């Protein structure tokens, strides 16, 4: 019953899992984007190169997407202040909980980490609550 409509999502997920596998088996590193980003500030100098390279790959990927499949990319809704508030919460939250959608949601759950399972259930829940609240009180987006 899955049908063809979810093929892109499944294939995209497979690529994400594969990207994580390349990093895990190639460099013994976890493909958690918030951790890789955060390590830019706190890591020793010898630990920076692979982080910068990974992030460059993500960014160049974005550039290629913009050129080949511009419909795949869209800006976030809302004013710049709204987006900044979102980014601040994401930064504080992922630093405190040591992971985001990739680190906890994909990598952690893949190795059946109870910690990551809890984190993923919590951020999905509060994400849903935030979307619901925005719809209710602001009529969708700011």
């Amino acid at each position: 019953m899955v049908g063809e409509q979810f093929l892109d999502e499944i294939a995209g997920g497979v690529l994400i899992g594969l990207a994580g596998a390349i990093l895990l088996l190639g460099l013994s590193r976890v493909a958690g984007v918030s951790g890789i980003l955060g390590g830019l500030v706190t890591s020793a100098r010898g630990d920076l190169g692979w982080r910068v390279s990974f992030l460059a790959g993500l960014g160049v990927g974005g550039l290629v997407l913009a050129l080949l499949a511009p419909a795949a990319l869209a800006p976030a809704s809302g004013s710049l202040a709204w987006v900044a508030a979102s980014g601040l919460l994401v930064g504080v939250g992922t630093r405190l909980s040591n992971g985001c959608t990739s680190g906890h949601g994909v990598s952690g759950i893949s190795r059946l980490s109870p910690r990551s399972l809890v984190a993923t259930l919590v951020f999905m829940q509060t994400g849903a609550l935030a979307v619901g609240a925005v719809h209710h009180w602001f009529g969708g987006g700011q």
Partner: protein
Amino acid sequence: MRSYAIAFLSGLVFAAGLGLAGMTQPAKVLAFLDIGGAWDPSLAFVMVGAIAVHAVAWQIATRRGIVIVVPKAIDARLVGGAALFGVGWGLSGWCPGPAVVAMGSGLESAWVFALAMFWGHALVTRFDLTSGEDIRLISAPAPAK
């Protein structure tokens, strides 16, 4: 140089996956989180695909003796941090990966998002000395059976 190439390739494949899956369209992400409204469940299949592949990678990694060292505690810090992250995610529809992809595509708001995210990281690091304990992996010989 080889390790840089591996990391770059991983990032590139990651970006392609996020783009194909629809994770770089904030409106689609928000529709996935809108469980109480017109819920679009399709992004759940992204997790299914990613976890299926990545679970195999962990099996191989374990067999090769790659040992992971992570914080184990399920505490207020984990739950509170995840809760804040979820709210931030729900405001814009961007989580860190798609935001970096969007930066590369030249979206101005993604740079604002990333700058704010850095600020958030720095805030926690500034006021909490224990926050340096990131996920770490060490390669070690596999334990004898």
